[in-house]
């Protein structure tokens, strides 16, 4: 293990940034609490997010643990039905709205977007800080709802259950999500303008790193989708408080309309979670294969395509609700349109690796994991876009397994790959390669152990959101719970070795992995408060490794 990391570090293609006189960086130039809490520096805001979402992830993970424990046996013996319902609701809401959606965009995006495009900061630094505090306020409100007694509607808030029948704190939670939604919108807005208007000289659109393309596509979804969920939750709140019937059929409303409005956001929201991971994977694979990305333009456009197609497929969540069969067919066909750009990406990454010079550092191991899990997650989506099979699989554990493969297997693996990849840049420290690879391996194995049995469970017919289940489903549930305990170990390990490395890690140089993008080549690790000593000028395409032999040899 150690040899590999050593090798990586000796590969120092680009010299350290010239002109650095002192050791001042964004982390140590001011140590006061206020300098952190009121910082306008995108890098520090990224770290504020990192700490907050990690806490939310731990909370969501603990809830997942409780859920899996309950499902160990067919009878409800660990939790009551009500607690179980509140636990899976809280798990869903926390993981989706407070962890996955802000994970890569808000942490890595904030840290990297200005660095990767050679800018001093995002376009609107104050708005950026406001986004963080909106996120924070939204989290506080949501946690308040949980402390008051929780919400038992499921994260989908289906009416009329949520508007009329549920006796839980739906409105408090809706307010929390409303607020956090605005955080998401403002973050997306900030990135879009930043990418459009803050690129350094020479950095044309097709010289942008693919991570930027994916963040850009994500931001478009955030900007277009989030307001719709905000207004939908608003209507839900109006219905619940005033007792009027926007969605309640007994008062003339239509509960299916809620689902249409809800999924108009919530399906594209899946792409908010997965697109940035696709971007991270492109970066990681290019760097560790030391090769340009195959089909750069196609990968860039496929991110945009996924973002746009994401808005025309939402009703595939509603095939069994009694929407018109014709609409179901149209949405089924449209849904397949998302499969194509996703497939193109996977094959292009493989072609990138082909003929490369692949090194197996931790981020690459995570990226391999991502590749496997995203492939399975994406392909199982085919079962659900195909009408004939979706009817049987809808609302069963097959769905649960599928979206966990995408959102946990895909998005979190990508997030972990990104965190490990840019950790030396963020902190200026190296983490232990041994522990990194071990945790990547354990996570991958634990993940498959947990969620693969759920595909079979779903096919056997076990409905989701059951806290008791018929005996015949127990074997696979035991497997799943066992896997979850492995997964928990895999996910907790980075907490320790990363924290350790932050304080005691070996110092990283400016480009320990031989990355080719601006954040590696043109600034120190960690970067100075204003990112670059001099504004970079870009003269060539990204991932331009070839023709640099001389530089390496001379080293």
């Amino acid at each position, binding site marked *: 293990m150690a040899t590999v990391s050593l090798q990586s570090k*000796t590969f120092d293609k680009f010299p350290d940034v010239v002109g650095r006189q002192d050791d001042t960086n964004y982390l140590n130039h001011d140590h006061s609490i206020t300098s952190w809490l009121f910082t306008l520096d995108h890098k520090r805001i990224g770290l504020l997010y990192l700490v907050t979402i990690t806490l939310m992830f731990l909370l969501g993970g603990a809830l997942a643990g409780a859920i899996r424990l309950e499902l160990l046996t067919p009878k409800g013996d660990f939790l009551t039905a009500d607690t179980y319902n509140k636990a899976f609701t809280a798990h869903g809401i926390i993981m989706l709205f407070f962890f996955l959606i802000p994970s890569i965009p808000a942490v890595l995006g904030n840290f990297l977007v200005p660095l990767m495009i050679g800018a001093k900061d995002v376009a609107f630094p104050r708005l950026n800080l406001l986004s963080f505090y909106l996120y924070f306020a939204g989290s506080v409100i949501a946690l308040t709802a949980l402390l008051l007694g929780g919400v038992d509607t499921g994260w989908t808030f289906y009416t009329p259950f949520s508007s009329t029948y549920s006796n839980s704190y739906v409105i408090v939670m809706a307010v929390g999500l409303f607020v956090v939604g605005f955080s998401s919108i403002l973050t997306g807005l900030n990135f879009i303008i930043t990418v459009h208007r803050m690129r350094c000289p020479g950095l044309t659109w097709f010289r942008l790193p693919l991570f930027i393309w994916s963040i850009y596509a994500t931001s478009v979804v955030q900007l277009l989708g989030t307001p719709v969920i905000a207004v939908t939750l608003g209507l839900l709140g109006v219905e619940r408080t005033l007792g009027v019937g926007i969605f309640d059929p007994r008062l003339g409303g239509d509960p299916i309309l809620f689902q249409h409005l809800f999924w108009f956001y919530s399906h594209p929201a899946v792409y908010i979670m997965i697109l940035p991971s696709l971007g991270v994977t492109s970066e990681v694979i290019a760097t560790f294969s030391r090769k340009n990305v195959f089909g750069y333009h196609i990968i860039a456009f496929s991110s945009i395509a996924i973002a746009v197609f994401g808005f025309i497929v939402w009703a595939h969540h509603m095939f069994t609700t009694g929407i018109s069969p014709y609409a179901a067919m149209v949405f089924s066909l449209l849904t397949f349109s998302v499969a194509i750009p996703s497939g193109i990406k996977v094959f292009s990454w*493989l072609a990138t690796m082909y003929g490369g010079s692949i090194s197996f550092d931790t981020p690459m191991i995570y990226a391999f994991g991502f590749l496997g899990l995203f492939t399975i997650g994406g392909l199982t989506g085919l079962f659900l876009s195909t009408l004939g099979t979706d009817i049987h699989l809808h609302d069963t554990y097959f769905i649960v397994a599928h979206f966990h493969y995408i959102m946990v297997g895909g998005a979190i693996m990508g997030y972990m790959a990104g965190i490990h990849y840019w950790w030396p840049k963020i902190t200026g420290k190296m983490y232990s390669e041994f522990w990194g690879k071990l945790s990547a391996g354990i996570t991958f194995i634990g993940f498959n152990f947990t969620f693969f049995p759920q595909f079979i469970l779903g096919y056997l017919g076990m409905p989701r959101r059951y806290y008791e289940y018929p005996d015949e489903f127990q074997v*696979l549930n035991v497997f799943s719970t066992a896997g979850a305990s492995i997964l928990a170990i895999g996910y907790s390990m980075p907490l320790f070795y990363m924290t350790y490395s932050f304080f005691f890690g070996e110092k990283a140089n400016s480009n320990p992995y031989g990355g080719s993008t601006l954040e590696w080549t043109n600034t120190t690790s960690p970067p100075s408060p204003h990112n670059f000593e001099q504004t970079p000028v870009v003269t060539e395409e990204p991932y331009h490794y070839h023709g640099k032999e001389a530089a390496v040899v001379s080293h």
Partner: protein
Amino acid sequence: MFEEFKWLPDQASTVAPEVDMLMLFIVVVTVVITALVGALTLGFAIAFRRKSESYIPAPWFGCIPLEIGWTLIPVGICLVMFSWGVKVYSNIVIPPADAMELYAVGRQWMWKIQHPEGQREINALHVPIGRPVKVTLTSEDVIHCFSIPAFRVKQDVVPGRYSSLWFQATKAGTYQLFCSEYCGTEHSRMIGKVIVMEEADYQKWLSEGAESGQALQGRKLYTKLQCVTCHTGNAEAKAPNLEGIYRKHIPISHIDGVKIKDGTKVFADDSYIRESILYPNAKVAAGWESIMPTYQGLVTEEELLQVIAYIKSLNQGQTPPRTEETPTPATIQNKVPNKEVN
């Protein structure tokens, strides 16, 4: 826990093998592609592992035939899945015309099932083997979902409207009936059994302890709710004759109180009858004054189904005689505004 375990679900309806074939096809595609991606990842990782620190690989920007290939081949596969899926889907959703009809009402947290012959059951559904069965579904409160995995069918049960699903059982036995749309605290206990019986057993079961036919219950309601006061079926009628209207196209004159084009017709199915009882003004039969009061809040979903079953069975000249002792519907109606809905 191992004794009940099985890898594959029961295959007990006519559509189940079709769904499973399609499933198998997608599984094969999935496994092949996953294996391909996995093998290439591992293979490339080994073959192209970093051997020398100074080696910089040659660039490869793209390969048009390759890219066209991995775009068009998936498009083709997707189109096959889509069309196959649509074919299976239409078999799942379109019931045969001769299907026998059952009714199910979902509520927190049970299924109430009615047979036309009068049998009623809770969280159990007895059906004969080899006959297509159409279940008309509705909910009294929130959205539920009527799901029988062994038959590969599933339909959300939405309050305020009828939905339906059909199946034809092929194997005798007992199967799971689930509510698969989250519906509140006891969602996971809203499960029942589907008991598929040989025709003879089914007939025997039907004859045991049926209170009275569903239509007969409906007939009682027809008098009790004073439908008969106006729908007399004779010359004194103040409302259309309901004999033999079921599944006929009948002319209507107003929609939501607004006059519409002459000659417009509506198909008198379950949903239309339900709507006409709850919202009499929604589609008014041509030639009649819109004087009918709404029965919203006065009949339960189950009773509605019984009235509908009765109207279905109502043939020429069968409308019962009018009885005067019960109050007119209008008086019942006056109580409505005071009734709290929530």
